[in-house]
């Protein structure tokens, strides 16, 4: 039963992800991306990682897509529709996507067997994060702080 839902939501996540990229209407694309993120959360659910699944829905579905759509709605969408496809952008994006795809395939190849499906709650996730991987965790948080301060500094109007 779980396996069936795993493949169903996995397929949905990929299909909606494709729809998000191919959709010409950006708002609809954003909604498709939301569907993709929520299906990804459901994939976590079916593989036993309940906590990560919920956080996925909450952070990506609840916060990030709202920000995307909020920003998109303040723009002139009609003007964006008429924007022609530029060869430079398409080829650069394609190149990056290709590199990313190869990296993921490489990562999947180097995996030894399927990851064990233990039910993971908040505690099982938190203790390695705060003990074993404390330094990388803190480095990432400093990186995010730098990004936030940078964004505020760039976004602020000159007085």
């Amino acid at each position, binding site marked *: 039963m779980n396996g069936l839902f795993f493949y169903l939501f996995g397929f949905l996540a990929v299909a909606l992800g494709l729809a998000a990229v191919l959709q010409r209407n950006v708002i609809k694309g954003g909604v498709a991306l939301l569907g993709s993120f929520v299906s990804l959360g459901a994939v976590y659910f079916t593989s036993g990682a309940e*906590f990560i699944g919920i956080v996925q829905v909450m952070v990506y579905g609840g916060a990030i897509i709202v920000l995307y759509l909020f920003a998109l709605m303040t723009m002139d969408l009609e003007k964006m529709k008429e924007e022609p496809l530029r060869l430079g952008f398409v080829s650069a994006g394609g190149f990056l996507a290709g590199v990313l795809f190869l990296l993921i395939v490489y990562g999947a190849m180097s995996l030894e067997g399927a990851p064990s499906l233990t039910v993971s709650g908040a505690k099982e996730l938190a203790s390695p994060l705060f003990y074993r991987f404390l330094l990388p965790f803190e480095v990432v948080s400093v990186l995010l702080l730098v990004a936030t301060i940078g964004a505020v500094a760039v976004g602020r109007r000159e007085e």
Partner: protein
Amino acid sequence: MIEHFLSLLFIVGLMLVAVPPITYLERKVLGHMQQRSGPMVVGPHGVLQPIADAIKLIFKEDVIPRGADKLLFVFAPSFSVFAALLAASVVPIGFINAVPMKSGLLFVMAMSAISIYAFFLAGYSSNDKYSFLAGMRAAAQVLGYELPMGFALMAVVILFGSFDFNEIVKWQQTHGWGIFYQPIAFVIFLIMMVAEVCRPPFDLPEGESELVGGFHTEYSGMRFAAFFFGEYINIIVLSLVVSLLFFGGWSGPLADKHPVLGVLYHLLKAGFFIFLTFWLRATFPRYRFDQMLNIMWKIFLPLSILNIFIAAVEALFVG
């Protein structure tokens, strides 16, 4: 398995059946608070008014405005009900627990976070300036309340040491109600809850006096009703959650011997918070948009972060 299924049926049934009487009660309560009688015509003291409303809504013509984004326009109201019912399914009422989940509290949060898309998409897809503005307001509001609400809940979770509703109630049965430990979290959560369901004084996305009807200006018939079902189910669910987190849920005198009493206690506690939303609606004027953002970001966010430290100290001593 059959037990879970029956519980799920009960909870979903309860949510759907409870909405019409609640709308009636709301109008009555509002009426009496404003020195009027409220609905009086249909049936004795207007008790049959919800049925009349339902018949009207069912037979009303369903209009999709020209130039609307049809797919999203049809999708948005059902999304509202869908998210609300999903959140309802994990909240235990007494011994009735449809989907026992280790991270139940977080799941309710996630569902309420995505339920705002119903307003947002309705506002966008209607192809109407008022609805569009309402959609923008809904998006800004969700960014405002989500953080203080999350932090307030984190403080509570640090104290209880669990996301599981059953564990949370068990903790309170031995240590006393959560409100005695976390009054600040309670106040913040209560206010954010009103903002979350877009009820006055935080009904900015609806704003009848300035935006006509806000996100549901262009909706009619059952699609319009779906928004109301979503909104009221959300109120019921969040009231149940508040009474679970801060008022011991189904604990009370004799509740451990007679589980049915526990269900009753829980529903009564939740009923008080449902009444509170009517009360707030009758008492406070709507916040202006900038005022709403100001209090969310400048008062409640720092306060809720401060409260996490209080919770950590309490957790050290009480454990």
